[in-house]
């Protein structure tokens, strides 16, 4: 068998395994755990997608974006509008449909969400790539807020009332599949020369450029990929629960950054861990309802003192004298 064919066959096998895993876990979860825990698992998966994708920009490429919730919002609303306004006409699949007929339309809606968000990522990335550090942070922050306020004022997507009438089509299986896809894509990119180009930009932009890495193009690429997956996460979110711009405030962006930093900048597994811990922790602390936020903050402070590089972040090598 040619290596090309065998790698293709192996790919198919992996896809099948991932699908089986997603569906299997979903079935088990429906059977064995109550809806409250099921919901936490779904939010966990979405946060994993957000943290992984933001890690590409903040941890791996070394830029500082604090507008990730904005990309999530773009994906959520674009896909929701697609499902509500276009899907019934295109596929004749109404909001009450269920079973296998929703697979195609939902997949397409996720793609619409991801691509719209990626386009937004490109637009934001282009001018802001001339900026560094604090300035870039301000631009992305501004973008996130502008997006939220603009959506708030579009009546066709519900405006301040929230977007009603979106069929609930996301389940845990979709979310697991989404998180797995994000993970595999980022891991494969990181193992290639493209991934090392992102790292080179983080380490030393001037040296990277002098070695032939077109740094501007790679920075925009990082933004586009990150925005795509944030958009898909947003699209999954839109088809799962009540959609309102309040879910995409500045605090959501900060939450994702904390997940990335806590897990370890640049570490994929760290992002998964950070997202899981920070989704579960507030829920686990519900017993102490009034002291909850205090305990949560204290835990974060202690962790940052004990492991400033994050749970799985690598200790930087001793810098040359």
């Amino acid at each position, binding site marked *: 068998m040619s290596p090309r064919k065998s790698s293709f066959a192996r790919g198919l096998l992996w896809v099948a395994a991932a699908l089986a895993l997603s569906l299997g876990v979903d079935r088990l979860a429906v059977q064995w755990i109550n809806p409250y825990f099921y919901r936490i698992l779904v939010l966990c998966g979405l946060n994993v997608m957000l943290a992984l994708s933001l890690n590409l920009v903040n941890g791996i490429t070394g830029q500082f974006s604090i507008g990730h919730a904005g990309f999530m919002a773009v994906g959520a609303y674009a896909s929701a509008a697609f499902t509500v306004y276009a899907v019934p006409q295109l596929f004749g699949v109404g909001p009450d449909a269920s079973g296998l007929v929703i697979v195609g339309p939902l997949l397409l809606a996720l793609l619409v969400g991801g691509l719209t968000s990626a386009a937004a990522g490109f637009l934001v990335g282009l001018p802001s790539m001339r900026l560094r550090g604090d300035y870039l942070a301000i631009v992305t922050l501004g973008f996130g807020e502008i997006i939220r306020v603009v959506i708030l004022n579009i009546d066709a997507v519900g405006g301040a009332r929230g977007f009603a009438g979106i069929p609930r089509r996301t389940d845990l299986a979709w979310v697991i599949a989404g998180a797995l896809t994000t993970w595999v*894509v980022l891991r*494969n990119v990181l*193992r290639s*020369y493209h991934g090392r180009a992102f*790292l080179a930009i*983080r*380490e030393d932009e001037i040296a*990277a450029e002098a070695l032939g890495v077109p740094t501007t193009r790679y920075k925009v690429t990082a933004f586009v990929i990150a925005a795509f997956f944030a958009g898909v996460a947003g699209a999954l979110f839109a088809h799962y629960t009540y959609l309102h711009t309040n879910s995409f405030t500045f605090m959501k962006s900060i939450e994702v950054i904390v997940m990335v930093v806590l897990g370890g900048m640049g570490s994929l597994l760290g992002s998964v861990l950070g997202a899981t811990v920070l989704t579960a922790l507030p829920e686990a602390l519900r017993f102490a309802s009034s002291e909850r936020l205090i305990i949560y903050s204290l835990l974060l402070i202690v962790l940052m003192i004990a492991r400033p590089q994050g749970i799985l972040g690598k200790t*930087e090598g001793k810098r*040359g004298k």
Partner: protein
Amino acid sequence: MSGPLLELKRVTRAFGGLRAVADLDFILDPGLLAGLIGPNGAGKTTVFNLITGVYAPTSGEIRFEGKRVDGRATSSIARAGIARTFQNPRIFAGLTCLDNVRIACHTHAGAGLLDSILATGRSAKEEADILARSEGLLHSFALDGYRDTLAGGLPYGEQRRLEIARALAAEPRLLLLDEPAAGLNPHETQALMRLIHDVRDRYKLTVLLIEHDMKVVMGICERITVLDYGVCIAEGVPAAIRSNPKVIEAYLGDAV
């Protein structure tokens, strides 16, 4: 190819009122190991920055293998075949030595982003090539032992070697070395100069180096260009430079 490898024609770079490089004409023939010297502030590093596109010339033109390169992005000039090292090594401190070298293989990698995402056979084959080539380079620079060490943890001399190995991974035809011996002891300097000489022969490169240590420059370079206040004051073989009164004046000051 006939004709010069690198040609600077009346190149000027001004920073405000200061002309760091003024109307510089400079020609570098292929295969040479040439030196660029001059007192502090003579504009040597500025010349490197102009050649590699870090600065665009205020006026004048720069040709590499006959093609204009001034005004192009640094990365595009690197891809055209000019690699450099820096006065203070700019290694990727947080990455392993292997990754430092692998990054420079970027110039000749062709698999698209989609190939990488899907981990296709094409991408896998290319990555295997890059790995083999990088390990080969680490080996020829006696850095195999540091393959998986974070580059920031290397001793200074090894960092300088790593930076040269990394520059070679970009497969340049012209290698610019900015004070490769700075901060090295005389013994290390000797070894490094032998290495540079070998590298030039083995990879059939043209090398242009900036150096302060006159003994080093005189010992290794075949042609020397002397800059002072951004102007070329002398050019020729080492013996001629050594006895050139203008050069002596620039370095030691006016005879009274």
